[in-house]
């Protein structure tokens, strides 16, 4: 059973954590694409700036001497999400709305979003430097080691407190998003506008309001994803810039414009990445006893070497674009 526990530690938990972060980022991208019809590159900077908002709030809490039972990063998350939503609205007002008003093509908006990416990243680096920060400088990162000896395993099941909370929070927010999209008036309006913007407008939907709500939801989710990523690893200015392409891959694999597809795509890419670099020898080692001398398993038997981990997402992306360009869930293709 040791092998199975090892597999769960290396693939299931790591993949779920990565998948949650990808899914939350991809939902925002896919919503923006559905409503505004452009690939929003600056989403990575919404994530990073959201994480820095949370970090500043957590530092403020720590300086006031407030001690919380769960990591402070999670306690301040709602506040940071509000700040991120306002920030996203401001970016839209300042940079994208004028271009939309001029009737610019989606391509121009894409280039503008790259400009925004560069500006926000420059500002973050200006204020915080290029170094990395940790949420756990004043508090400890609890690690749960679940003893599995009753299953006959010599290794414990390892999961950290932020990872556990992260999975719980993601599930809650995905459920909330589902209820919002299917039950509330605004959510239905959003889906209508994603389906056919002109038809939505003539049937009396306030499209300007829908656009604002989209930015609020996307900004809040981006902040959540960024903060959780920073809680799992460390906070640095290029935190999300490095994973924006896997996130786009998740959105495209799920079908751009499809919120549920984005969640499925995020989890798929997360699991695929951790599965691809998994060292199969660790699980198959008992086979060495029965295998003949010449067919012994090598020390590392991974599908791709660890240094190519990030390329797994790109390869999946390219294959999906080739085989099924609209994604698994048939995305928008305007």
């Amino acid at each position, binding site marked *: 059973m040791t092998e199975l526990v090892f597999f769960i530690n290396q693939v299931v938990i790591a993949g779920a954590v990565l998948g949650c972060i990808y899914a939350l980022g991809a939902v925002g991208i896919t919503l923006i694409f559905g409503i505004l019809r452009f690939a929003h590159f600056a989403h990575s900077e919404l994530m990073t700036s959201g994480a820095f908002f949370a970090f500043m709030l957590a530092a403020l809490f720590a300086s006031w001497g407030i001690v919380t039972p769960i990591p402070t990063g999670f306690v301040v998350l709602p506040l940071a999400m509000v700040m991120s939503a306002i920030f996203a609205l401001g970016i839209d007002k300042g940079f994208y709305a004028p271009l939309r008003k001029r009737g*610019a093509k989606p391509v121009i908006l*894409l280039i503008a979003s790259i400009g925004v990416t*560069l500006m*926000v*990243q420059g500002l973050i680096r200006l204020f915080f430097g290029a170094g990395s920060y940790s949420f756990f400088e004043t508090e400890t990162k609890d690690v749960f080691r679940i003893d599995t000896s009753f299953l006959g395993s010599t290794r414990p099941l390892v999961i950290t407190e932020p990872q556990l909370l992260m999975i719980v929070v993601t599930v809650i927010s995905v459920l909330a998003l589902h209820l919002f999209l299917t039950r509330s008036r605004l959510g239905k309006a959003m889906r209508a506008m994603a389906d056919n913007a002109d038809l939505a407008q003539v049937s009396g939907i306030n499209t300007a309001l829908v656009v604002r709500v989209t930015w609020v939801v996307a900004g809040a989710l981006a902040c959540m994803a960024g903060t959780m990523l920073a809680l799992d690893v460390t906070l640095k200015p290029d935190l999300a810039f490095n994973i924006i392409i896997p996130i786009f891959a998740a959105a495209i694999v799920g079908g751009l414009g499809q919120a549920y597809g984005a969640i499925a795509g995020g989890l798929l890419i997360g699991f695929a990445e951790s599965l691809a670099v998994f060292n199969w020898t660790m699980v198959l080692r008992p086979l060495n006893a029965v295998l003949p001398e010449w067919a012994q398993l090598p020390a590392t038997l991974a599908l791709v070497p660890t240094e190519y981990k990030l390329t797994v997402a790109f390869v999946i992306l390219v294959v999906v*674009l080739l085989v099924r360009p609209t994604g698994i869930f048939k995305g928008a293709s305007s």
Partner: protein
Amino acid sequence: MIRRSLSLFAGLFVLILVVGWLMGLPFTSSRLVEAAAYALIALGLNIQWGYGGLFNFGIMGFLMLGGFAVTFMSYPVNAEFWGGDGPMLLGRALLAFALGVLLVLAARRSDRIGITGRWKATLVVLAWFVGYCVYRSQIDPAAAYIEANAGFVGGLGLNAVFGWIFGGILAAGVAYIVGKIALGLRTDYLAIATIGISEIIRALIKNMDWLTRGTLTVSPIPWPTPLPQDYQAGGADQVTALLLARGGYLALAIVVLGLAMWLVSRAYSGPWGRMMRAIRDNHIAAASMGKDVKSRQLEIFIFGSVLMGIGGAMLVSFTQIFDPSSYQPINHTFLIWVMIIVGGAGNNWGAVFGAVLIWLVWVVSEPVAKAIFETISYWSTTVGWSEIPDIESRSAQMRVFVLGLVITIALRYAPKGLIPERVRQDA
């Protein structure tokens, strides 16, 4: 229109003089050589985006290919590699690769023997997997052997100009594959696909230590023209030698740029250019007129990528070091896009103007930001506040902010660029 372009270029010339006066001649001369290489790269993007309307966000990948090509062609021969078992092992890996390709091709043709539908798909996937495993089983020991015994493959010891040409050829080959895969996609998808492919190229070049030495970097890569040391050996003093050598390199770069510009302009003002504009502006109408949209787009994608490969090779042989980890999407993809947007997509002079201007802005914004911060810091300390910490690293980061600011302002107030495209209406 002509007057506006001329005055803009005159302004650029004055800016170069001011930079030269403030920052000194050695700094400015090397920046100018780099600007010439970037102008060539921007010309390549101008062909793809300005002429063809193709959204290439994988420029970094093509620059890396060019850099690798020039390293491979012009770096001195590594006798340890050629003397050992390395070539034989690599040959076997190549055979395994060919075998894998044959396997996949055979699986794709399996409908000929009656295997269709789901079974064929399964067979293709299986063929890919087996081919991959066969290739890995040969390349892994070869790579380990070369890294342990010879360091890396080394170069061929030819003149760097051959490396530039090889860079163009290599970029063309990869562009053909990328174009075949990705050009059928619409703009946003194409942008993301090309970014993904350039990241794959980066990961490969960075981690194939046996071929490129990876993060260990390769240097010094020889110049195509005499180095400053050669002039110094001939009796010239340090400053003259530096200027002579860089002047020689700059002259060569400008000759290449001028040649590319002449060829591209000739092609674009002819029937071929009219066809490209027609495809860019309305590819459905162009297709209905009997134009083969897909292969024309592939053609233009390859032409643009060739210029990018040559430009990337020129940059690497100028700095004399090939460092795969120094390649960043911001410095090598987005920067070129800002050059094109600011200069004017669809106009070659606009592309060259944008390249030189943005490159100067990019390199100058760091010292300027530093000067501004130091002034503010001086005032804040005089009034009793604390000074700004880490001015050095902070001003280095200002380049990225300035780049973002420039592109957003350009999109807002000059969406067609400073020297916009001119379409002759008389024909």
